[in-house]
């Protein structure tokens, strides 16, 4: 299975990179841009007996290593095949 994991700073945590990119986009003339956040996009292949088992496994990966729940939120997609 192909797994896509998305990690981003939690809403209440100051995200200086997101602010800097937002300001740069405004400077380039892109109007109406707000709420910019920078995160990580992680892809991996996983051998798992079922989609549910894969989801359970990836959730643990995120909690233990891929994200730091103190400062980051995460979500992921599992693609069969």
């Amino acid at each position: 299975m192909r797994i896509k994991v998305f990690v981003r700073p939690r809403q209440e945590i100051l995200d200086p990179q997101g602010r800097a990119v937002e300001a740069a986009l405004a400077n380039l003339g892109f109007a109406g841009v707000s709420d910019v956040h920078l995160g990580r996009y992680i892809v991996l292949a996983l051998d798992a007996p079922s989609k549910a088992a894969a989801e359970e496994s990836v959730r643990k990966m995120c909690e233990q290593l891929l994200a730091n729940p103190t400062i980051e939120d995460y979500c992921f997609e599992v693609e069969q095949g």
Partner: protein
Amino acid sequence: MKWAVARFPGSLDDDDALYVLREVLAQDASVLWHKNESLGDAECVVLPGGFSYGDYLRCGAIARFSPIMRSIAKFAADGGLVLGICNGFQILCEAHLLPGALTRNRSLSFVCETVTVRVENCHTPFTGSMRQGDLLRLPIKHGEGCYVAPEQELRQMEERGQVLLRYVDSDGHLSDRVNPNGSMRAIAGVANERFNVFGLMPHPEHAVEMMLGGNDGLKIFRSIVASVAG
């Protein structure tokens, strides 16, 4: 007193920590490679500064799973003293041995300067030879030193006195201007609830002789020695 300095791939300041312990304070200090599982008979373990594992993923996130960290977690649970400096502080937060996390400096710039920090709680093994309100001049050098924690946790930490050091101006006053990385509540160093684990972003091991521009860092190491000597 017996000390152990952990060495991870990418540690930088391990030799400086060994220098202050052995040469300046005549302590018995050994190096522990991160694959070691035994801490020997160390009474205090130091996690030094640097860029363990190249800061991949997040600072300290990979080092946290080194074999030695299991031993250090058990050592801390048994009441052993653990001092984490800079990257060592980041590792201790990732390992949940300290609350909160260290994120990118608000300025997005690496900071390398000497700062003033104020001692907020002198009733700990790490600050016992100082007085509340004492000011220390210590170097900092980091890109990810912005301390963050959930507001409720911060309140509890303040009530329990877990904030040991705060960035202040030369008169000892808080000011956004002298907060070098945007840390919440200007926090420069925190302890755990039991006060046997301490992490700080400034480098006491770089301020141990007047020739280096100051020796305020000795006050932290001497506090630890005095606490163990009882």
